[in-house]
């Protein structure tokens, strides 16, 4: 009987995760909020280039490619297949992302495979990953940026060459003009070069740096796009969410305090799953005496996984080991975490930290591999205890990962309810359009959404999913 190699098995497992996520994504309507307006704008736009041009130099953002992509997919839907095109694209993005993630691990042994399996559930189980799947605007651009960063890392680990450098430059340009988080592609390329992964050569790095400087010039000088203001959206602060007016009142005179809080809590969020979106949910639940598995499991598994990463890093520093892949993953992870947190200074949102979350999972891969190689060498009771801890950690993260299914089912149900209520809501608020094209679009999208038969997660039967996972 043919046995798959560890590498093949790792790709097989990644493909399995990609398949289930793709199925869950396809079993979901295009959402109303943050999507319908974009789709109506795309309908009115005359071309992809017109969409791109119109969004150069908007008030607080420089994201012309984001809008151009929406227009491109809208046109591809040809007036009917919106759900298939947009959800299909989302499913494709998640599949490619998971395969790129697995590719960069370079699995070659059974131990590598076990660590890769753990890394996959860490990636998909972290709350920052939820943001890459549970919503789409109508494209999930955070997931696109994650894909770009993983592409850059794969290029950095390649044999290099002029085409690799060119590809890195193109990837950076696409990412930066899609979302601000796209600047992280440069961070990945630069730190990878610094730690010895030089598939993207010095020439490629110089080119990418020049492009980044060009982006900064365009954004802050040429178009004067600026940065988001305090009054733009709500954001978490300690135990609650503050509305824009409250943020303006508290921090208008000194926004640096708030920005510092956002950076610091974004880092903590990835490392310890607490706080989330700026709110210390676990602390609040403990104070309200309503600690459930859905609060305890994420924090516990994150604390232990972060401890494992710190242990792996510390032993390399103490014993002065030469730089190996695990050390490189940890160093790149730290750099991306800090850079990602700095980029999210204006407001906290789980999905913004999705890129840092993925690189955290890469560091966790290295740390778990270290743990599995070390456990047999320890004295028997300690070795068994350590190994059992690793196994329990794997169970905990798997529980978190499988919870994504619950998250997606809940979101799908919510999106469908939003579509069901839309005509009445818009008619009462006099927003119901008169334009025949707009009406056709809304009615098509609504019909697609209503036609889906979805499992009902709303009424709380059975009760255990709601206490195990956050929706």
């Amino acid at each position, binding site marked *: 009987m043919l046995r798959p190699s560890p590498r093949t098995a790792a790709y097989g497992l990644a493909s399995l995760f990609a398949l289930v996520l793709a199925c869950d994504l396809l079993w979901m309507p295009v959402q109303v909020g943050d999507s319908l307006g974009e789709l109506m704008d795309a309908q009115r736009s005359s071309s992809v280039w017109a969409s791109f041009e119109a969004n150069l130099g908007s008030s607080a953002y420089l994201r012309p490619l984001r809008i151009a992509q929406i227009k491109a997919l809208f046109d591809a839907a040809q007036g009917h297949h919106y759900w298939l095109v947009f959800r299909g694209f989302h499913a494709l993005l998640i599949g490619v992302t998971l395969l790129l993630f697995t590719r960069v691990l370079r699995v070659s042994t059974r131990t590598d495979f076990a660590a890769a399996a753990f890394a996959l559930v860490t990636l998909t189980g972290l709350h920052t990953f939820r943001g890459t799947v549970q919503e789409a605007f109508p494209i999930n651009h955070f997931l696109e940026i994650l894909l770009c960063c993983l592409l850059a890392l794969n290029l950095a680990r390649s044999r290099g060459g002029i085409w690799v450098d060119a590809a890195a430059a193109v990837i950076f340009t696409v990412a930066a003009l899609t979302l601000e988080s796209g600047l992280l592609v440069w961070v990945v390329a630069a730190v990878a070069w610094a730690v010895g992964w030089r598939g993207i050569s010095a020439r490629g790095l110089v080119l990418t740096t020049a492009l980044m400087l060009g982006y900064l010039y365009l954004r802050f000088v040429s178009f004067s796009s600026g940065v988001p203001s305090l009054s733009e959206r709500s954001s978490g602060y300690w135990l609650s969410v503050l509305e824009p007016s409250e943020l303006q009142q508290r921090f208008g005179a000194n926004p640096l305090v708030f920005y510092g809080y956002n950076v610091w809590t974004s880092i903590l969020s990835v490392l310890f799953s607490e706080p989330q979106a700026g709110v210390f949910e676990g602390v609040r639940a403990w104070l309200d005496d309503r600690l459930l598995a859905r609060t305890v499991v994420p924090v516990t598994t994150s604390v232990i996984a972060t401890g494992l990463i710190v242990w792996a890093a510390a032993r390399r520093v103490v014993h002065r080991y030469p730089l190996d892949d695990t050390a490189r993953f940890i160093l790149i992870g730290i750099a991306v975490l800090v850079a990602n947190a700095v980029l999210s200074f204006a407001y906290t949102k789980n999905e913004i930290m999705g890129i840092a979350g993925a690189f955290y999972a890469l560091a966790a891969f290295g740390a778990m591999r270290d743990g*599995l190689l070390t456990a047999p060498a320890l004295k028997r009771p300690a070795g068994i205890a350590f190994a059992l801890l690793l196994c329990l950690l794997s169970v905990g993260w798997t529980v978190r990962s499988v919870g994504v299914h619950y998250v997606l089912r809940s979101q799908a149900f919510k999106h469908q309810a939003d579509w069901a209520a839309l005509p*009445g809501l818009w008619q009462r608020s006099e927003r119901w359009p008169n334009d025949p094209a707009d009406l056709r679009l809304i009615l098509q999208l609504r019909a697609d959404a*209503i036609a889906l038969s979805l499992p009902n997660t709303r009424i709380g039967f059975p009760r255990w999913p709601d206490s195990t996972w956050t929706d």
Partner: protein
Amino acid sequence: MARQYLDRLRKLDPFSTLVALPPVVGAIAWLGALALTGATGTHPVWNLQPRNIAEAAAFQDSGALVRMVNAGDDPDRPGEVRGGVILPAAATLAPIVAAAGSRELTMVQLLLDVGASLDANTWQRAWCISDADSVRELLTVHRPEGALAECVADVP
């Protein structure tokens, strides 16, 4: 063959296997849930499907409610709602009463949007079954003439 199998087991790294097993089992279970749903039409965990508009309202299933109305079902026709959702025991309720009992303003509003009507008797039953302020505020706006905001023990 048994000896070969045992030899293979001995060579396996047990801890690596134990670490790899949960993610593999988790992914397969996830796939199994999706496959089972695809094959049977019912999710193995969340398998409560409404049998009529009243149950759709009680279960807060907007999609099912709109599908049933689009298929020609009467949004005013009472239907049996299984026990344990709105009331402890099964009961026959008008859809808008069931929606009020779900304590979800959006369900009551949705039923009004799809054409459900409120006579005095139905209004009173909806008023009494729900203690949600938002639902009662909406019911107040749509209060028909002669409808009493008084609840007696056997209503609904």
